[in-house]
């Protein structure tokens, strides 16, 4: 439901994996091959002096390293923090206009809270549902309601879906238009703890 860029996640994981695999593989093969091992270790001890000199005599290299690290840190932080967004507080906006589905005077904004409260209230007394949560998301420039229901242990998911569909039909009648609704039927810890039958 959220706007996480999944392709980007997979690309990042893939690239880091590829770098580790190639680096590890190259070092392992090089170490096991005596000729390569000799040449590389010789070359490494030869450049040791020049690199140490370069780092002590030319401090700009260190500043470049610091700035490059900072830029990469900012990019990675942006990448980590942009995950999981996409919730919205506004369900519907109807602009002023002359068409049939528009208002004639002023602009109408329906808050997502309205849908959340109406649907949660309507489903609170359904026997097969332990708890219900309604959230609005923005997916592809459309508002989508997600109804998450925790099922009581052993209740048929088709029964739960039928009750939620009925509540949604009532909500459509109240709203006067249809917004996409996604029903999520979970069996988490709360449904595991619940008894198979409701007593009250």
């Amino acid at each position, binding site marked *: 439901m959220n706007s996480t860029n999944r392709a980007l996640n997979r690309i990042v994981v893939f690239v880091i994996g590829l770098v580790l*695999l190639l680096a590890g593989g190259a070092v392992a093969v090089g170490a096991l091959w005596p000729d390569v091992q000799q040449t590389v270790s010789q070359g490494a001890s030869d450049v040791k002096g020049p690199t140490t000199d370069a780092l002590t005599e030319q401090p700009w290299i260190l500043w470049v390293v610091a700035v490059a690290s900072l830029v990469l840190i900012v990019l990675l932080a942006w*990448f980590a923090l942009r995950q999981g967004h996409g919730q919205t507080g506004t369900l519907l906006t109807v602009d002023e206009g002359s068409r049939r589905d528009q208002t004639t005077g002023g602009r109408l904004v329906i808050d997502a809270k309205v849908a959340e409260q109406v649907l949660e209230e309507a489903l609170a007394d359904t026997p097969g549902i332990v708890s219900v949560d309604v959230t609005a998301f923005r997916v592809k420039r459309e508002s989508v309601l997600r109804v998450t229901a925790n099922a009581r242990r052993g209740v048929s998911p088709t029964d739960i879906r039928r009750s939620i569909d009925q509540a949604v039909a009532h909500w459509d009648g109240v709203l006067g238009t249809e917004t996409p609704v*996604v029903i999520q039927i979970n069996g988490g810890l709360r449904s595991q703890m619940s008894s198979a039958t409701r007593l009250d």
Partner: protein
Amino acid sequence: MSTASLYKRIVRRETHSSRAGIAITLAVLLIVALAWIGTEAVLAAVGTAPLLLAPTDLVDSTLDAASAPVGVLTAVAVVVALIGLVLIVVSLAPGRRGRRGGKAERTVAVVDDRVIARSLARTASYAGDVDPSQVSVSVGKRSALIEVTRTSGRQTDVRSIDEAVRDELDAYDFSPALRHKVKLSEKGTVGS
């Protein structure tokens, strides 16, 4: 975007992992490493004592590593390569989340496999007249296995369990669809 294709997209996203956890973990590890390198670079540039290791020492020890004993070097390299391989597999695997999507009508539903398993277990225990604790169900990608422990000294009607479970599965419109198998365990429980 039409509602049908929107629903298809949402079901696909809700039934598969976003790989956010591993991506964020890797990003945080890289941030920590880069923050340390950057700090050391600045400290060395202004001539202050290093936190752990000055950049010159860091470069030196990296270059020294090339002449480290072959066994140690190979072992470290193989471990690094294996971690890389695991990450590549994770990035390419579908990452199912143990949920399945229903048919889209006015709404669309995504159902946790655990809900399906518990529902099948209850159906089986009613149909076979056994205690719910004697039925265990495991739901895989395309198949559900119902294991029933018989009560010793009583007949357990496997066929009626089988039929009841089939009726329930036929009422489902989830994909991937489930095939089922009822297994009666060899040992029985006493009492109940």
